[in-house]
């Protein structure tokens, strides 16, 4: 190793070792708890540090609960909630980002600031705001009550949870979408229009392929935390009727004496997300290749 290489390695070393000890090792610890054993008296998890002695019986039990037991509903609900929230987030976020990038004109700076603002308002403050509005004596409940709608929004309502997720995560979608759309070469769209494409055709044939990678990245950016979310659900519902995967993990790791189940669910969540991510990476690398061609 020459002198320069040593300097760079020495600079990277503290951070790299930090991540090794506090990021990579903890993942191993999760596996050791998940595939370890359970204390017969206290029911506490005993981690198995040697991978050769890992036992997969509890994992199998949880897995069969996912495929045909009580956990099936939790998994299905998680996927349905996240997918619906994603669709709604795009329905709201895409037009906003598109307008901001293309038609905002001289008001753009003001609009940009107003749209960035919720990004930096504490998530729990934004949930607190809605809990206040939706509680039976809250302004929103009283307002819709005037039209004869009496509904207990905060008592295990899936609509509230999904809308809460949309409200919580849409700012995190809009900014990367805006960054993508702003950087597109819109002259290509104009060229398509000049060559006789309708605006819809130009959108489909030119805009969509150019924006695809950035849009997919933005989608991943909000899908990942949504899959692990438990606090939105807890604050807006706290009912078993709307329980998601994150709530189960929170329960088993924090509030029960069965951290092994929690560890197994963490591994399942990570695997689920890894599959989604590898699909995303494959599709974006395909987009890259198409562009080269």
């Amino acid at each position, binding site marked *: 190793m020459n*002198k320069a*290489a040593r*300097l*760079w*390695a*020495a*600079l*990277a070393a*503290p*951070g*790299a070792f*930090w*991540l*090794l000890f*506090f*990021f990579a*090792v*903890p993942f191993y*610890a999760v596996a050791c*708890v998940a595939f370890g054993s359970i204390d017969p008296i206290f029911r506490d998890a005993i*981690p198995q540090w040697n991978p050769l002695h890992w036992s997969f019986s509890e994992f199998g039990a949880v897995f069969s609960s996912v495929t045909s037991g009580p956990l099936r509903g939790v998994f299905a609900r998680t996927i349905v909630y996240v997918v619906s929230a994603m669709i709604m987030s795009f329905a*709201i976020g895409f*037009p906003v980002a*598109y*307008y901001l990038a293309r038609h905002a004109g001289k008001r753009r700076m003001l*609009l940009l600031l*107003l*749209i*960035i*603002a919720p990004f*930096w*308002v*504490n*998530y*729990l*403050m*934004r*949930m*607190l705001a809605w809990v*206040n*509005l939706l509680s039976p*004596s809250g*302004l929103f409940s009283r307002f819709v009550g005037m039209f004869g709608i009496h509904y207990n929004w905060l008592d295990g309502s899936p609509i509230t949870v999904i809308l809460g997720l949309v409200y919580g995560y849409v700012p995190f979608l809009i900014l*990367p979408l805006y*960054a993508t759309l702003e950087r597109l070469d819109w002259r290509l769209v104009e060229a398509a229009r000049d060559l006789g494409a309708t*605006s819809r055709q130009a959108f489909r044939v030119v805009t969509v392929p150019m924006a695809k990678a950035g849009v997919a990245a933005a989608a*991943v950016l909000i899908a*990942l*935390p949504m899959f*692990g979310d*438990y*606090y939105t659900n*807890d*604050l807006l519902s706290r009912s078993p009727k709307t329980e998601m995967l*994150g709530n189960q993990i929170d329960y088993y*790791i*924090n509030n029960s004496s069965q951290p092994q189940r929690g*560890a197994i669910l963490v591994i399942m*969540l*990570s695997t689920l997300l890894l599959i989604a991510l590898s699909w995303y990476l494959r599709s974006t690398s395909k987009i890259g290749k198409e562009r080269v061609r």
Partner: protein
Amino acid sequence: MTSVSTRRVKALPVIIWGYIIWSLVPVVIAVIYSFNDGRSRTVWKGFSFRWWFGDKYASVFHDPSMRHAIVNSLVLAVTTMLIVTPLGLALAIGSHRMKGKSAAAVQGMTSVPLITPEIVVGAALLLTFTRLFSGIPLGYPAQLLGNVTFSVSAVVVIVRARLVSIGSSFEEAARDLGATRFQALRFVLMPMLWPSIMASFVVVFATVIDDFVITSFLSAGVDSETVPLRIYSSVKGGATPALNALATLLVLTTFTALTIGVFGLSFWRKRHGETGGFKAALADLTRMGE
């Protein structure tokens, strides 16, 4: 055809203003209710500073547990920021210049935390601190380590973007003029990295003071309660508007940090003849450059 597309463009301002109202008005209402004279967070009884400092026991400025949470939040955010910025800066420079397999490994490891949900990191660290590194007690020490771990990658992303835009020509010029590699790093590159260091400070401070998941998983009861944890645990109970005031204070703190950051960064850019100004500064802080 044109009429259809103009109509569509005309519908867009309605959507954007609708979005802004929907995203901000609930928060504004929550802020207004912190000035409610009544005990309720939903029924307005007139304006007062009762829950800010008027009430000698239950207002934000007097309630000992709320003051405690504020101090905890500030200490955690500032210390995390001070540890993680140099750590991430060195990691970014080192991994940017390293070559070969070790470089790929280090870069891979730095990008994984960016795509890991916080609940996974929080759960993994909790299991680690209670079963493997049991010398690290839950509460502030664990919360500090957890937040540093989760923010390192953000600093690396910010600094790396700056390194890419600087390029290597300035350092090479310094080397040609006889500077050692370390001198070139210290006297040429470091001053040019200032904006990314400032941006890291602000982004890490704002992220950690707002953090809920990791801080909550690694907390040890009331002693290590931060403001977001306090909000979480009292939202559903019959908390008074003092809770709204506490949350407002949190938002104000984040916004102050960001305002300082945006103006500091655009001032630096102007003084050093860099283009972009205010908007570029904003982009630095919202990671829109990525």
